């Protein structure tokens, strides 16, 4: 395996990790701050992708579509929080899982009803459609580099928001002691709506970015949701830093595993068997990593102390 190929696969892992981070950041915020398991996070990702595709098709501008994906998913998030989720904070996790699972079905079928059952067209903006030759001769798609950049920018923005702003202080305080924060005169209900809408907006943005290079279709959010849960469990539930590290770990493990395991196995098995076993083993790899992390640190890499 050549150095160029290894460099390209590493970039692929980084890009995949960043995509997972955008998804997991919102999920982990909502869980950490509000104690809510939001299965509908994947559906909000889908809402973002459909909003982007619809607006981009109508206006001809990908960037308007990208803005629309953030706005539509955040608005949908705020609406869901006020109308439904707000009633669930005091309930146990099973009720939350049931209600948010119902939301997946409602949002999916509503989307199908509005947009039809066939995948939508969403293509790259002209500026980002080519490839870029990086130092060392690695040819890499410009749009994937953009996803990596956006991922780092969002991570930076979130760290700033949570660590350096007044809203961030309230979010952290609300995470630690909800009643006390409310007693100090903070409108906790509004704060929760904001956090939920923020998480939803990030999911929507991820949906639009990913939809651009994959396919915009009903049900696109659920496979990613499972990976996002793996990421936040590895990173430690509630920790944005954990989500970033966890996402990069999962992205790298999955990509490099898929690229290298089948080849590595040809050393010990015959090629046909190595391909089958390698492909199967590579798909298990991230779960093995998750199990390993949980044995070592049961609350995840950056999980809150018990």
């Amino acid at each position: 395996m050549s150095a160029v190929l290894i460099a390209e696969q590493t970039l692929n892992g980084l890009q995949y990790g960043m995509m997972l981070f955008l998804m997991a950041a919102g999920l982990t915020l909502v869980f950490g701050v509000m104690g809510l398991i939001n299965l509908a996070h994947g559906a909000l990702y889908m809402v973002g992708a459909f909003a982007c595709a619809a607006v981009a098709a109508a206006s001809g501008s990908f960037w308007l579509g990208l803005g629309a994906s953030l706005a539509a998913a955040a608005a949908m998030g705020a609406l869901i929080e006020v109308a439904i989720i707000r009633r669930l904070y005091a309930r146990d996790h099973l009720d939350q899982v049931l209600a948010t699972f119902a939301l997946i079905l409602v949002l999916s079928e509503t989307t199908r009803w509005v947009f039809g059952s066939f995948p939508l067209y969403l293509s790259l903006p002209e500026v980002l459609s080519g490839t870029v030759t990086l130092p060392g001769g690695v040819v890499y798609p410009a749009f994937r580099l953009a996803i990596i950049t956006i991922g780092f920018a969002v991570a930076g923005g979130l760290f700033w928001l949570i660590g350096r702003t007044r809203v961030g202080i309230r979010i952290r305080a609300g995470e630690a002691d909800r009643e006390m924060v409310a007693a100090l005169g903070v409108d906790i209900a509004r704060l929760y709506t904001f956090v939920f809408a923020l998480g939803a907006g990030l999911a929507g943005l991820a949906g639009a970015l990913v939809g651009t290079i994959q396919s915009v279709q009903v049900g696109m959010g659920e496979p990613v949701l499972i990976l996002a849960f793996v990421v936040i469990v590895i990173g430690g539930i509630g920790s944005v830093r954990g989500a970033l590290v966890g996402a990069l770990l999962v992205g790298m493990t999955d990509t490099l595993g898929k690229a290298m395991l089948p080849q590595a196995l040809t050393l010990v098995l015959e090629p046909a068997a190595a391909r089958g076993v390698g492909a199967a083993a590579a798909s298990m790899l991230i779960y093995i990593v998750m199990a390993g992390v949980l044995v070592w640190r049961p609350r995840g890499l950056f999980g809150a102390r018990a």
Partner: protein
Amino acid sequence: MRRISTAIAVATLLASGAAGADGLKVGMITTLSGGGAGLGIDARDGFMLALKMAGPAAAGIEVVIDDDQQKPDVAVQLADKMIQSDKVDVLTGIIWSNLAMAVVPAAVAQDKFYLSLNAGPSALAGANCHPNYFNVAWQNDNLHEAAGAHANAAGYGKTFILAPNYPAGTDALSGFKRFYTGALSGEVYTQLGQTDYAPEIAQIRSSGADSVFFFLPGGMGIAFVKQYAESGVGIPLIGPAFSFSQDILGAVGAAALGVKNTAQWSKDLDNAANQAFVAGFQAEYGRLPSLYASQGFDTANLILSAMAKAEVTDQDAFRTALRAADFASTRGAFRFNTNHHPIQDIYVREVVEENGVITNRIVGVALTDRGDAYAEQCKM
């Protein structure tokens, strides 16, 4: 195990007195929600269109339709329900091979007919074939075999091949290799449902291949073709029609233009049945039909042709009538092989733009009168 066999015994008892005179009840289990819904909806719409176009001839047919959500366990439950409480005579509709493997053997063992309008796993075509199982679409390997033949004809000698790791995926690659005579510059199995193909595309880039054969149905194919175009690799793609059928071409867009793909059907096939079908489909649903729709349409017409000759309660006569395949197929010449799978021509299509719509057009024939590789192992 005992509960299952009791259930089967009860079902057979109930079934024996079920179907009334002149009537026939069809149970359609297909994918109507989730990412694979486009395929099931097209197949269903094609099927229902045939019944509508048949007019009074279809009066005796009752169709029960339900959504399998692309999940084998749901499909099995639906089949049980349709056989036991709806008392259907004929089952059809399943799109995915893994679902077909879960449903078909049990259904035919309960003396129901199963007419496959899409999935054709090799396991049901060879030694485990069944007199009550008919495949109206193709054996899974067929379109891939044609792609292999096309790769030879196009002069490719270093093809990189990839498919998802599930029964139809392994069938696809073995089908391609059966006819392809060049060397393979890489062979990769991806995960079913995978949507990011950057690692595989990086491998293709470094492999030195002169062409890429891939089988990735539904959303997987959309993602792959878009990412492949974006990567700038630029080696010619070949694939079965599933990756370039009408239901996904709109989402793939211009990235697919010029790609050669193999199919047993195309909307520009020149025969009366096909012209009526394409025009009828557009008038009824306002979109171009995909090959899944044509397969649904042909399946319904096969049932109608058998109904005109025999009562479904007389299983032997009905089976003989089905085997005759005495209907006007949208594919032109169509007949059943000894294992109840089609013998038909398989064409090479090219993705083109026609009046602003991206679609396919036939550019050649890949295989003539092709049966399948498993028919000899089938003893019935």
